């Protein structure tokens, strides 16, 4: 059988000390090695240690040469931040390896390791390399001696707020900026993602808050309020925009309609340098934002200021110019046209009496009051028909016009009402009466005067398929005396001018490609309510943004890749984030906005919601859980001197062929939370051995040995051995080999670092078995460390965060005893790393009773697994200390070399 040439002789999976040793030895022998490491740096667990027993060599000092050697070895290619997905045996020998190179969001070729992104980053998350003792930034270099020394941005998913926003606004981003006190940056970031921060900070229904993970805890982060704080603050400081139009592209775009969709498209197109003209039939721009939303919800000056951000980019808005046909625009020489004509007016009730004077269409009514008319409902009774947000706006406006009684009737039952629940409760608070489950039978009047409206009971609004198909009980009727009826039962899209020119949908909306928003005419795009039917402002802004994206591609002659517009990565896992936060137990209640009391606020159309002060805004922003890691605030982009940040980077997949595989996947540290009686995770001064190693390391998180609760120097430290080892309760009966010695080593270092500290060991056997270990242990005893033979049953905490250790004193007379310590170190053990089997879907190497990868003959054939061509190194087959890992790695390398030299057919 002839063997197909392979890309590599050996795949070494895992860049810890064992993997590195093997890669170097095999490389020295002349084999081509591919070393794959899932973390951003090679070095494994050893590089995180302080010093190593029994020589007390500095772990960094003896690891870094190997790390550097691996990355510089001519025969070794090292892929960090990469995961092997599966390993497939090939006919004729060898394996096909599928691997994923996880996105670092920073171009490693450009990154110089200068850490500026780290300094600029606004997100702090627990530092896994310090075992959670301290925080780190989302943009970070794993540790100072990392190889390669390249920054990586941690993004575990799109944060739910950002993932949810229909306009592609990134709340996590501006919240993290507000938290950092970077208010202007926060505002400008919003402007980059969507126009109208002022409008959205008031009139958005804030689906981001619905998505917010904190909603699973004490309540969502009040994102909209934070936005309003930053928008108000920015506008107070900058009454006029300081934006400069970009260099012109030479292309012209005509936009019909100056509502949220039209102006959003204008905004993004102008930012790409296109000359944009917006045609607006009305006297002022803004569409629904100008004419549909009453000013107590959205002051007109805020809208005007938002619009000036768009016009400052060079967008020309021609008001009073109603466009009658697409052709008319194309004739004017526009390279592309965007139709965003929105809705023209309300749907009709089609009941008798609908045309009586005193019956208003809601849109016409809201237009009237927004045109600052002198309309007054003083002393009148008003009935609003409809259960949506427009109906609510109409009812509350009617109150403000002086109506003495305002009732809302709607087909839907209360929970079915389409208006947002807070809108309904605000309206009711102001005095609006809501009558759900009623349909209109007729409107009647006398002598041309409206007198009453007759209602019939609505028993169901939707059918089984949730289609709108109301059912009425014509026998249950009610008549309301009223002076005014306002109908708000839905909106009709304004597309009539284009009926002959463009393909239309049956409901009167314009037919488009949903991905590109392109109509049946290539140069013509359409979006907003004219396409989707009635929707929300933020959705229309998103449509305008999408249209701008595809029009820009169109104008540049580029084809749009499906899905390209969507910048998001999959949503971060809310449930696990919430449970992580719950475990931390920090409770932070949301802060609330100030509001004018209902009785007072209905006296005028003035805005009634207050804005957060700076302290409240920052503490609100501090409630953010940083769900996805990176917030997308883009401070790093601005800070990076090498222009290396690429937030659009995505995972890359590679397939490579190798002749052999060496699994060096190491061990998994025991999670001390699984011994709840010891209080780890609950008592701040109970830490683990690996954490103490970090505290003692040269790259330590704090500058001294201290206890976490109060930063004081500990004076009486306890070591509890065999935590997670030799313990059937936690499912690990084996000894972890290293804990006795690392604890003994730490004791020596502690006695060297702290002048008058007592150290006590609670142990069963001290397993100082390796070369030089026993002597090291004896030396430690002579230094004055107390060794108490006995098992610890439980640990309790005192008021001052000291700890009471309950132990069985086996040799001091027996019985249960207690001792007080101010710091307890749990000597946690090592467990097998799981998951190697999943890499081999077509048959995996066998594991032993303890789920370590099994060696066919542990005595004579170290490193040889049950799968030919697959080898195992170091702790992946049984936990080992460093010297034994080195020996085992080199032994496995000899096995691999033998296998390869014999043509890979060793039995």
């Amino acid at each position: 059988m002839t063997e197909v040439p392979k890309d590599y002789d050996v795949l070494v999976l895992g860049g810890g000390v064992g993997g590195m040793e093997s890669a170097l030895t095999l490389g020295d022998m002349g084999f081509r090695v591919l070393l794959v490491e899932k973390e951003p740096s090679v070095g494994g667990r050893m590089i995180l240690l302080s010093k190593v027993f029994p020589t007390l060599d500095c772990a960094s000092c003896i690891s870094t040469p190997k790390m550097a050697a691996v990355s510089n070895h001519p025969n070794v290619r090292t892929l960090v931040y990469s995961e092997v997905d599966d390993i497939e045996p090939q006919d004729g020998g060898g394996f096909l390896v599928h691997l994923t190179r996880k996105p670092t969001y920073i171009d490693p070729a450009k990154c110089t390791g200068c850490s500026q992104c780290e300094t600029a980053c606004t997100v702090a998350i627990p530092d896994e390399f310090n075992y959670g003792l301290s925080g780190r930034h989302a943009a970070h270099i794993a540790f100072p001696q990392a190889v390669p020394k390249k920054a990586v941005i941690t993004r575990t998913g799109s944060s739910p707020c950002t993932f949810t926003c229909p306009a592609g606004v990134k709340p996590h981003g501006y919240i993290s900026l507000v938290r950092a006190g970077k208010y202007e940056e926060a505002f400008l970031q919003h402007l980059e993602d969507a126009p109208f921060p002022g409008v959205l900070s008031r009139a958005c229904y804030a689906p981001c808050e619905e998505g917010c993970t904190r909603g699973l805890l004490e309540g969502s982060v009040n994102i909209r309020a934070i936005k309003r704080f930053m928008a108000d603050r920015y506008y107070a400081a900058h009454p006029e925009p300081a934006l400069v139009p970009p260099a012109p592209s030479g292309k012209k775009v005509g936009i019909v309609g100056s509502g949220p969709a039209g102006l959003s498209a204008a905004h993004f197109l102008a930012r790409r340098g296109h000359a944009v003209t917006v045609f607006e039939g009305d006297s002022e721009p803004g569409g629904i934002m100008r004419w549909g939303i009453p000013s107590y919800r959205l002051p007109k000056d805020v809208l005007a200021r938002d619009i000036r951000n768009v016009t400052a980019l060079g967008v020309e808005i021609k008001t009073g110019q109603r466009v009658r046909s697409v052709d008319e625009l194309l004739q004017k020489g526009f390279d592309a046209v965007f139709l965003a004509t929105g809705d023209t007016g309300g749907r009709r009730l089609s009941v008798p009496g609908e045309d009586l004077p005193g019956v208003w269409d809601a849109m016409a009514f809201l237009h009237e009051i927004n045109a600052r008319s002198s309309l007054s409902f003083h002393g009148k009774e008003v009935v609003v028909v409809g259960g949506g947000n427009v109906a609510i706006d109409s009812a509350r406006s009617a109150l403000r016009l002086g109506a003495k009684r305002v009732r809302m009737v709607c087909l839907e039952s209360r929970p079915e009402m389409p208006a947002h629940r807070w809108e309904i409760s605000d309206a009711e608070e102001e005095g609006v009466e809501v009558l759900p489950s009623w349909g209109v039978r007729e409107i009647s009047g006398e002598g041309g005067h409206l007198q009453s409206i007759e209602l019939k009971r609505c028993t169901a609004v939707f059918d089984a398929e949730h289609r709108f198909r109301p059912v009425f009980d014509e026998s249950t009727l009610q008549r309301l005396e009223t002076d005014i009826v306002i109908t708000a039962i839905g909106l009709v899209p304004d597309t009539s001018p284009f009926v002959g020119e463009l393909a239309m949908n049956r409901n009167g909306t314009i037919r488009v490609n949903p991905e590109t928003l392109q109509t049946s005419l290539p140069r013509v795009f359409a979006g907003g309510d004219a396409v989707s039917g009635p929707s929300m402002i933020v959705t229309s802004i998103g449509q305008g943004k999408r249209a701008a994206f595809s029009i820009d591609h169109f104008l540049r002659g580029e084809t749009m890749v499906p899905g390209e517009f969507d910048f998001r990565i999959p949503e971060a896992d809310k449930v696990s984030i919430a449970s992580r936060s719950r475990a931390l137990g920090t409770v932070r209640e949301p802060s609330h906005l100030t509001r004018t009391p209902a009785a007072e606020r209905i006296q005028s159309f003035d805005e009634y919601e207050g804005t957060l002060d700076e302290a409240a805004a920052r503490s609100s922003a501090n409630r953010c859980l940083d769900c996805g890691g990176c917030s997308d605030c883009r401070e790093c982009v601005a800070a990076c001197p090498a222009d290396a940040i690429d937030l659009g980077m995505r995972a890359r997949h590679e397939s490579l062929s190798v002749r052999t595989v060496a699994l060096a996947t190491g061990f998994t540290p025991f999670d001390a939370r699984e011994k709840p009686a010891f209080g780890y995770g609950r008592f701040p001064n109970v830490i683990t051995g690996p954490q103490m190693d970090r505290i003692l390391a040269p790259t330590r998180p704090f500058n001294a040995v201290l206890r976490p609760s109060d930063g004081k120097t500990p004076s009486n430290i306890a070591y509890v051995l065999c935590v997670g080892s030799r313990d059937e309760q936690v499912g690990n009966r084996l000894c972890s080999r290293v804990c006795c010695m690392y604890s003994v080593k730490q004791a020596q270092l502690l006695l060297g670092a702290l002048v008058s500290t007592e150290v006590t060991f609670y142990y069963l056997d001290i397993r100082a078995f390796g070369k030089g270990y026993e002597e090291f242990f004896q030396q430690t005893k002579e230094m004055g460390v107390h060794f108490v033979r006995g098992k610890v049953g439980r640990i309790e905490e005192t008021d001052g965060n000291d700890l009471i250790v309950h132990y069985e004193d086996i040799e001091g007379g027996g019985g249960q005893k207690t001792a007080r310590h101010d710091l307890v170190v749990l000597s946690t053990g090592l467990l097998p790393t799981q998951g190697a089997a999943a890499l081999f879907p077509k048959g995996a190497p066998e594991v032993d009773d303890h789920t370590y990868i099994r060696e066919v003959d542990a005595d004579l054939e170290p490193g040889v697994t049950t799968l030919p061509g697959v080898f195992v190194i170091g702790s992946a087959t049984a936990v080992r200390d460093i010297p034994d890992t080195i020996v085992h790695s080199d032994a496995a390398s000899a096995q691999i070399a033998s296998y390869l030299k014999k043509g890979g057919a060793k039995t």
Partner: protein
Amino acid sequence: MTEPEQAPKVPRRIGVVVCQCGGNISDYVDTEKVRAEIAKDPDVVSSRVEMFACSDAAQQASVQEIREKKLDGLVVCSCSPKLHLATFRAMSARAGLNPYEYTQVNIREQCSWAHTHDREGATGKALRLVRAGVAHTEGTEPLQRIRVETIPQVLVIGAGVAGLRLALALSDMGLSVHLVEKSDHAGGNVARWGTLFPSDRSGEEVTGQLIEEVRGRQNIQLYLRSELVEKSGRVGAFSVRIRTGTGDTIPLTVGAIVVATGFEPYQPAQGEFGYGLEGVVTLPELKEMLAKEPRSLTYHGKEVRTIVYVYCVGSRLPEGEGVQRTYCSRYCCSATSHVSTTLNSVHPELHQFHLFRDIRTYGRYESLYEGARRAGSVFLRYGEEDPPEVSRDDQGLLVRLKDRLMAGEPVEIRPDLVVLVTGMAPRPNEELNRVLKLPIGTDGFYREIHVKLRPVETVVDGVFIVGTAQGPKNVAESVASSLAAGSKTGALLLRGHVELDPQVARVDPTLCTWCGECQAACPYGAIDRVLYGDKEVAQVSPVLCKGEGGCVSACPKQAVSVLGYTHSQITAMIDALAREEA
């Protein structure tokens, strides 16, 4: 006083990197001050402080600096050259700077760590050391490594389980093996050991299979009753002589030598825990008994109903004279747990008492300990200050012990057999040590370069130590260490050549008058007498020379110097060290 005339100094372009070692240095030495001071030297054209000079990023920065500033010399002030000389030489080479124009200055072990309570003094000393380093670098010249061919043959000394298994691995890699065994049979200790833990296989069977496979290999030659008696040459091409049982000596040329000479079981002194009394045996003696008679358990014809094991005999002793027995023998706890479980499985009624200090069934061997307890063994802990007493009276054997669990209450056991769990002791190997001159630790075992990271390599390039010759190990660990040496040997020999350090001695023939002092001083046989014009002078073979400098001090004419450490360099360094700056 007039200064002696000096050769005009050639200006150099030297870069200096001062390493903080993440606080190891900078906590005690003002690294920035050191940098600023040395930057004043006219030959120093660049200087930096780095948190970890050895880190990848810092190395890249150094490479860039060497290239951009066209440096012709580099000084890194960091740790001992033992740690990072090779690192920074390789880095220099990557940057295009001859690695021998690099100088390492040790301001950690020899400065910051030695003066942790005197920052000012340590800073001053560091500065002097750096100045000396710069002075040394001013005198460097580019040197090329000496490339020599290697012989694809390996000498393995000792045909126990480690040596046998290694021979097969080397043979698999395509290297020829000469396997030399002192005794008249291969298999070593394991062959006599009976049942092995944890595999439950017979040691004789295991070694028997290995021997059979070794005999079947074309490229393995097994020499019994043979010894290494002579070694010369250098890494990649050693000339050795083997004396065989017939008294012949066979000359061989090998690329590498692996020492797999194993251990000796510790032999208790008469009276040590009752050794010498009837019924007191060592663990290996028990194992041999059981290997011969696996089914019945009798001692001198009498059935054994109770056994007492005394652990740590010959191990974990206090420091004493001569060879230290302070070490733990590592394998004995697991082996004894295994033996007792095996015995209980055949003789369920047998009572077994284990008198131990700490049970060290580390890692997965914990299940052997657990198995022994489940099978009915009783474990009693004794303290090193209160060892058990073994005696014999008219009723038979008596073991007395203070039970630590029962607050020191005296316990008496009357066993039929006392087994002293003896540890591993180093072999004397006098002849071999004379030939190989390997360093030996205080425990009597061969000493590796670095116990953590280079456990099978020795200070002699191309000579490896494996198995229990390096320290106590069980079978699996011995084999792993032998195969580890196998891969290191492969890395050395499979490429067909090695490169040697060019920092070797050189004779200035104009000064040499041949007195022979240098030749007598050289332990490597690297110096020959040759004709230079019409006079006889000394000449150094760069391949054989180790650059150790014995010849330099022997020469009455100062005609010999070691490249990289010339007389003028040393003088310049001393001047720099002693110089008082204003």
